[in-house]
């Protein structure tokens, strides 16, 4: 059942993607790459949420790492200090991230544009500082150790291929959920808010509520990613949840395309690839330090904004669109001629 003219999920894309996920560990077997791919999945979840926020609610978040960290620390503290089962701490982690986003969104709802962006930045810094300073709960900068691994039906989900599948299973869920949102009535409402908030409001769309919902959802996705991250590592520390991390997530969304769920995914993979490449080069050429990574990320952001302002994925898809429009226009032009003849 197809509805022409309405943006819809390309399910064939989802299928191919799922197959690619399954095939990857069969093709690439080195554990280093499996781990990198697992991290890519964790970041992709954050990026997809951030992409929804930026592309559909039209709001930049300079502190997304805060929710990532909150998710990770919530589950870590619950499972270590209180001995909870990790599966129980998952909904709590989601709830805490979501709730904090709700409170933040509600109190900051009078802010707009740059003021709101700065508020997200401030929030990110506050959370990071608290993670470092509340040593009693978070163990501070030295890190929180002893985070238990996940187990399902009595079997531990080890690092490596099993965890890879766990993470990418969640990525798939997040992807499908996001695609559904975007292609539904809610998604249209969000896109309309992005294009013209004033007109959207005059159509009866409660713009404030929608923006809030996306903000909370993006925070919950980041919280989920934090949960996955915590149980993959034996320990976590606040250094993974800094302003720099927030910027990295931003770069993934900007590169892939903030108006696109697939774009966020692709952007994440590409940025990860850049990171891996720089590391590999760094081993060959010692002058390429880890700071070179920053130079590259900076360049990517600059070049994307100047040359590909909508991001990779939307730009590429619009090339296909233009090509097909040209084809249909050609058909229409050819169809006009015979009609004219019959009139005269």
């Amino acid at each position, binding site marked *: 059942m197809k509805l*022409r003219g309405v943006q819809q999920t390309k399910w064939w894309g989802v299928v191919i993607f799922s197959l690619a996920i399954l095939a990857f560990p069969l093709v690439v077997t080195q554990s280093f790459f499996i781990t990198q791919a697992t991290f890519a999945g964790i970041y992709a979840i954050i990026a997809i949420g951030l992409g929804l926020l930026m592309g559909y609610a039209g709001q930049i978040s300079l502190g997304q790492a805060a929710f990532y960290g909150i998710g990770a620390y919530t589950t870590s503290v619950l499972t270590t200090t209180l001995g909870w089962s990790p599966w129980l701490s998952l909904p709590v982690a989601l709830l805490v991230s979501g709730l904090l986003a709700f409170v933040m969104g509600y109190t900051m709802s009078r802010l707009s544009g740059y003021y709101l962006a700065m508020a997200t930045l401030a929030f990110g810094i506050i959370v990071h500082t608290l993670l470092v300073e509340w040593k009693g709960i978070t163990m501070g900068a030295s890190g929180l150790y002893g985070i238990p691994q996940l187990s399902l039906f009595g079997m531990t989900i080890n690092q490596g291929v099993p965890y890879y599948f766990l993470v990418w299973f969640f990525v798939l869920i997040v992807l499908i959920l996001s695609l559904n949102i975007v292609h539904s*009535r809610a998604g249209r409402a969000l*896109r309309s808010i992005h*294009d013209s908030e*004033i*007109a959207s409001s005059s*159509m*009866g769309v409660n713009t404030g509520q929608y923006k809030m919902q996306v903000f909370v959802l993006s925070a919950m996705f980041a919280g989920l990613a934090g949960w996955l991250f915590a149980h993959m590592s034996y320990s976590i520390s606040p250094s993974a949840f800094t302003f720099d991390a927030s910027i990295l997530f931003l770069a993934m969304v900007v590169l892939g395309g903030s108006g696109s769920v697939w774009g966020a995914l692709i952007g994440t993979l590409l940025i990860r690839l850049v990171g891996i490449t720089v590391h590999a080069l760094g081993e060959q050429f010692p002058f390429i330090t880890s700071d070179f990574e920053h130079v590259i990320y900076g360049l990517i952001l600059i070049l994307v904004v100047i040359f590909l302002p909508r991001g990779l994925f939307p730009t590429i898809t619009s090339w296909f669109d233009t090509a097909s429009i040209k084809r249909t226009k050609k058909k229409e032009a050819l169809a006009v001629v015979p009609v004219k003849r019959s009139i005269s």
Partner: protein
Amino acid sequence: MLQVNSVTKRFGGVIANSDVSFTVDEGQIVGLIGPNGAGKSTMFNMISSIFPPTEGSILFCGAKIDKLPSYKVAPLGVSRTFQNLQVFKSMTVIENVMVGQHMRTKQNVAGFASMLLGITKNERKVYEEAMEVLQFFHLESVFDQKASSLSLGKLRLLEFARAYATRPKLLLLDEIAAGLNHSETSEMSALIKKVRDTGVTVLVVEHDMDLVMSICDKLIVLDQGIKIAEGTPREIQADEAVITAYLGAEVEEEAI
């Protein structure tokens, strides 16, 4: 149906509207006209609750609407078009209209989840209704084109169609004919009448005198924020104050 009571709007030191009152009855096509800077768009913005009046009140079907947030006005039956075109550029024509139907449709979590299995019945209904609206406005041929690729004439029709899709009781048209050529304006006039005949009351702000004189039942004339005349098109055409406002005192001097 619509009652504007002694509405005044001040922006800092600037008085955009001063003690303006008028009514719009059901089934009418009413025109709000006046020279530039008369305060017509400001009035429109207050009726659609973009911002509230400084003094006075606005009632719609007996209920006060001037203090409501703008997204609450549409469900009451008031919708509008925008002078500076606020179409949803990244969406297709039919998607634009579907947003117009937003508040009349619902999609709960169950319907949401069943999207996994393909298009739901609800979506299909919304789609078909939107298509009907497009046909009403002769836009069905471009239904799947991105709004950003349309010509001005079609964009104005799209805004009109989108506002109509909300099934309003009162439709506010803000200079819908601005920039249109003669034949497009005639088409627009005919459409406005067609819309009225389906039971929608229409309030237009317009500069095009031909359009306004030919379709409006009643005209309200503003000049520099004050209402200077109200009446049928014939009465207004003969009204001295109106002529002076539009043409200035030169007419008087010429007569001498």
